[in-house]
């Protein structure tokens, strides 16, 4: 399945040469392990395109309260009125009329993997999710197309009042909590894609951790797109009450098709006084998925918010997890890894808004581009008036592995308080010849040596991941490296 080692890339300057669909697919799937497709398994015939009727239908199928239906319809208006972003990646390839906005793949959410339809269960088995759940997860949520098909939380967590459920169930089971927090950090008109998500959202996770509760094993959600031209719009809301701790991990993948899919999530997180939330993403969409995600967290007094954001896949990613430091002494950290191979544009980064005194933030970004890929760091550190003694440090390093690839850095630093101290540093370079030479003189091939250097380069991020994910990320990087040098 992995064609990387055998098929030399040799596509330099082949513009104008007709590439058959098959070749195109082969090229896309090189090194991608998650390229299997299940037969269509929708429980009703899905429709393409977006309209009020589609939004009404989604809302009706979910039997939602009226306020949510109205919110969706209003958001649709925002979406229609807003222009496409003029900055960032090229989004002209998105055909909003050709996308499925809602596909229901099972009638009923399962609590046991055995209860899922066979092909869907096979997908999760191949991804190793049930296995991981047994070993080291406190809860698992598995979303297939538009909805969460499997969901389970460890009994111990359930017993101490930790709520971990899918967003649709949360709206049904905890309507007041959802209504109080939904869309408060990311209002529908925040940006075009947040508006789209608000209009057609489905699935995603809802987590509430009661005061003082430490959830010491990660909760995980896994998102899978199966259908071609699928639009996945999950919506996640995490509330860590005072003094609590939770680590949430999300992963994702999709099969490879000739035409594109769209993933546009909204994630809102509130870390109340003294709480700590860590949100880890290993994004490995296939290279025909547009990944346009809005992620925002609020950190109150002495709270700690950490985004660990690994972007390895997708055709286009535009995602800048942000932290609003709203309480005195709040801390924020963004660790971002971006990878872009052939045909990919990964525009990632992070934002820290200091709105209270003695707040600190650290943003570390590492990006690697190769085979004509383009990575970007886009970030903002802003100190509001009165946020005295704010401290921030931003560090971005980029590695460009060949002449066709590209790296951009767009850091914004805005300071409205004289006691704030902010620093930003960035470097862009290639793999050091002397490092390569040293490793090769010890018997490593050029590919192995490069992969080792790249792994060392992103090590500041991988060491922050749980072991299993660090291994996975390193393996993904190695796979991406195969056949890339020479």
């Amino acid at each position, binding site marked *: 399945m992995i064609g990387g080692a055998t098929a030399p890339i040799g596509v330099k300057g082949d513009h104008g040469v007709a590439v058959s669909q098959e070749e195109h697919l082969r090229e896309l799937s090189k090194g991608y392990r998650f390229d299997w497709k299940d037969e269509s398994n929708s429980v009703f015939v899905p429709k393409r395109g977006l309209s009020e009727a589609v939004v009404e239908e989604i809302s009706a199928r979910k039997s939602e309260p009226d306020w949510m239906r109205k919110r969706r319809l209003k958001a649709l208006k925002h979406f229609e009125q807003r222009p496409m972003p003029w*900055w960032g990646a090229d989004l002209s390839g998105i055909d909003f009329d050709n996308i499925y906005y809602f596909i229901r793949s099972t009638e009923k959410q399962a609590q046991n993997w055995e209860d899922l339809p066979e092909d869907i269960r096979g997908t999760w088995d191949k991804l190793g999710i049930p296995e991981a759940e047994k070993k080291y997860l406190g809860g698992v949520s598995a979303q297939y197309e538009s909805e969460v098909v499997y969901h389970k939380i460890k009994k111990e967590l359930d017993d101490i009042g930790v709520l971990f459920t899918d967003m649709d169930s949360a709206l049904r089971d905890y309507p007041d909590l959802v209504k109080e927090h939904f869309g408060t950090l990311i209002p529908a008109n925040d940006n075009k894609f947040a508006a789209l998500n608000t209009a057609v959202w489905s699935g995603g996770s809802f987590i509430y951790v009661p005061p003082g509760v430490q959830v010491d094993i990660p909760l995980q959600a896994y998102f899978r797109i199966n259908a071609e031209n699928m639009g996945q719009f999950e919506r996640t809301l995490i509330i860590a009450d005072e003094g609590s701790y939770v680590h949430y991990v999300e992963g994702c993948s999709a099969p490879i098709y000739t035409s594109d899919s769209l993933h546009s999530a909204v994630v809102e997180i509130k870390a109340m006084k003294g709480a700590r939330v860590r949100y880890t993403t290993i994004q490995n969409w296939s290279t025909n998925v547009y990944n346009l995600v809005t992620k925002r967290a609020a950190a109150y007094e002495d709270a700690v918010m950490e985004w660990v954001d690994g972007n390895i896949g997708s055709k286009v990613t535009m995602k800048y997890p942000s932290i609003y430091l709203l309480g005195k002494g709040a801390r924020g950290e963004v660790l971002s890894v971006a990878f872009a191979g052939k045909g990919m544009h990964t525009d990632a980064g992070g934002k820290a808004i200091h709105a209270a005194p003695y707040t600190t933030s650290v943003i570390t970004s590492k990006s690697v581009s190769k085979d004509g890929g383009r990575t970007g760091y886009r970030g903002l550190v802003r100190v509001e008036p009165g946020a005295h003694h704010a401290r921030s440090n931003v560090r971005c390093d*980029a590695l*460009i*592995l*060949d*002449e*066709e*690839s*590209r*790296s*951009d*850095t*767009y*850091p*914004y*630093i*805005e*300071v*409205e*308080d*004289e*006691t*704030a*101290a*902010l*620093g*930003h*540093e*960035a*470097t*862009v*370079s*290639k793999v050091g010849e002397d490092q390569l030479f040293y490793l090769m003189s010890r018997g490593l091939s050029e590919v192995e040596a490069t992969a080792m250097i790249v792994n060392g380069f992103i090590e500041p991020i991988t060491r922050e991941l749980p072991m299993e994910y660090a291994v996975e990320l390193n393996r993904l990087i190695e796979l991406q490296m195969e056949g890339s040098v020479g």
Partner: protein
Amino acid sequence: MTSLTFDEAAFELLPKATEPLQRMRKQAFEEFRALPIPSQETEEWRYTDLSEFELSFEAHLPSVMRTTSGQDLEGLGIVFCDLDRAAESHAELVDRHLHTLVPTDRTKFTALHGAFRTGGTFLYIPRDVRVELPLQTLTYLDVDDAAAFPHTLLIADEGAEVTFIDRFASPDLARALSDAIVEIVVGDGAHVRYVSIQEWGAGVTHLGIQRARVGRDAEFRSLAIGFGASLARAEAETVLAGAGGFSEMLGVFFADGTQHFDHRSVQDHVAPNCSSDLLYKGALRDASRAVYSGWVHVRPGAQKTDAMQTSRNIVLSEHAKADAIPNLEIEANDVRCGHAASVGPVDEETVFYLESRGIPRAEAERLIVTGFFQEVLDRVRLDEVRHNAELAIQEELAEPSAEVVS
């Protein structure tokens, strides 16, 4: 005197110019009328609001003084004169280069400049000629409601060497506009040092664009010193167009009162094996505001590029604010590019150290800020320019803080 708005009648009143210049003016005038005032909605003008800016001034010819440090220039074939006069005497050179680096249709203000500029400085250094001492133009404006369009076109032919100082000054005025353009062509193997000293008085809005094209194995060093104007937007751009080129861009500024500085820079690496280094340092007091945004572009094929970009800002009072946006766009892999930016107050630990040695706080802060600027000034090889900048910084530091209206 022309009327207060840049209309047809004012345009008709301009003194006659050469045929190609007339054509350029006419086209620029059309562009001026077609283009909008830059909006904060665009990334380029995000930090400077000109939406309320009244474009009603009298086009006014400022006093211009050119000094040659007593050197015999004609004997060396150097041309150093009024730009309109050069358009007649050296038509071929002027027509070939004027508004090629900064085209008139770039913004409404460059178009206005193209349409209404008269005068300016033309400097041409022939092949392999070295000018020992600095040449200088002083542009002086002392009329309220006047708009000046300073223009410097500097062409250093292959292997030539020159140092040029462009100085802009005025007393405090009710209001005035300086719409300035500097175009510098650094021929293959040539060495050019360019210093701009912006000392406009309060009331002046300064919108300046400086763009240099650096040829093969050529060297361009620029220094921008900015203390003046109420609002100063200064764009400095270097295009490294030939292999082996080098560019150094230094900037020193000190903002006080309610001054607004918008500094923008571009290091555009088109050719391989070039290096560029940028260092801007600024201090802010009172309720002043400074923005630095810079771009390093490395174009495909510009291998072996070595580019560095650094912006350091020291904030000395509560109501001052500074923004920094150092951008990199890298499309080649065998490069070394970096940037660094910082915004912060005077380091408390250093103050504490000095205080513990018996130095009063105010004096300690003065010493720290002086040291902060020294890193740039040490790289200025022109003694007089360095000395004057040092004096100006000391003067700024000695001034009592302005009353802040909040």
